[in-house]
């Protein structure tokens, strides 16, 4: 009787183990399925369109170029969340940031002084000073002449123009 019980238990255990083994085998996604799933996820995100995933035994390797560190991390997370993925090797490169615009070139004061003198020659009511690239205007000018004078001064490439002119 005792032996029968032991046998029964052993049989039950065996059955459980084999059933669970079979079912886990059945539900484990194939590498190709994982790859398809990840590729689908990436294609939905425009900045990950250049990232490719290869899968081997559930280990995903990402390669290609990401826009920035955030999208690189995003790619990794999307891959990790995919069913059947054991681990992710993230070999994505991050694109270099776009070059910053060239700094504005400001004319030197001696150049500005000469240019300002030329520009204001026909406007005797206008007094000027130039310091550290800043052109300061005082005195007075006719309303009709203001734009003309300003166009000349702006093309001298000053840092800025402080207009304290009285406009008549």
């Amino acid at each position, binding site marked *: 009787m005792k032996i029968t019980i032991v046998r029964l238990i052993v049989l039950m255990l065996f059955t459980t183990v084999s059933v669970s083994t079979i079912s886990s085998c059945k539900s484990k996604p194939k590498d190709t399925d994982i790859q398809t799933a990840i590729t689908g996820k990436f294609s939905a995100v425009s900045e990950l369109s250049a990232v490719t995933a290869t899968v081997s035994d559930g280990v995903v390797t990402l390669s290609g170029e990401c826009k920035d560190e955030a999208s690189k991390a995003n790619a990794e997370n999307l891959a990790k969340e995919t069913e059947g993925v054991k681990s992710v090797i993230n070999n994505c490169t991050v694109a270099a940031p776009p070059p910053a615009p060239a700094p504005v070139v400001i004319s030197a004061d001696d150049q500005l002084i000469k240019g300002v003198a030329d520009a204001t020659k026909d406007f005797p009511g206008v007094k000027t000073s130039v310091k550290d690239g800043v052109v300061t205007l005082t005195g007075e000018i006719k309303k009709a002449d*203001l*734009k003309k004078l300003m166009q000349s001064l702006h*093309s001298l490439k000053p840092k800025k123009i402080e207009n304290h002119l009285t406009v008549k």
Partner: protein
Amino acid sequence: MALQDKYKELIDYARTSGISDLQVREQDNVLYVDGAAPSGEVKDKLWDIYSKLDPDFRSADVVMDVNVSTAVAGSKARVTTEKSNLNIRKGPGTDQTVIGKAAHDEIVTLVSKTNNQWWLIRTDKGQEGYAYAQYLTTTS
């Protein structure tokens, strides 16, 4: 970025009016707009918008250096002084000797550009010298 909001209309127009080499940069609270306009009308329109957004140009927060790209060596230009003659000088600067005059409304030839202020010009009579660019308007 506040300046780009204040001058949004100006920037939007600059971006859609065919200005070549357009650069819109903000540095030390000044907005710098550089480029070459396809015509004098485009430049005028830019200045109209600018003066509307900043009446009498009081804010000292824009430097707009947009010249007219049709002003190239070899092209013809009209002398657009108010009514007086335009001085033709020996060199590029009002400190240079006046060596001749071009009449108001006269058509001259642009020989070469010294800088944004000065052009070397030639009159139909063959007189050559430097004239202030502001008073030369290219004829289309």
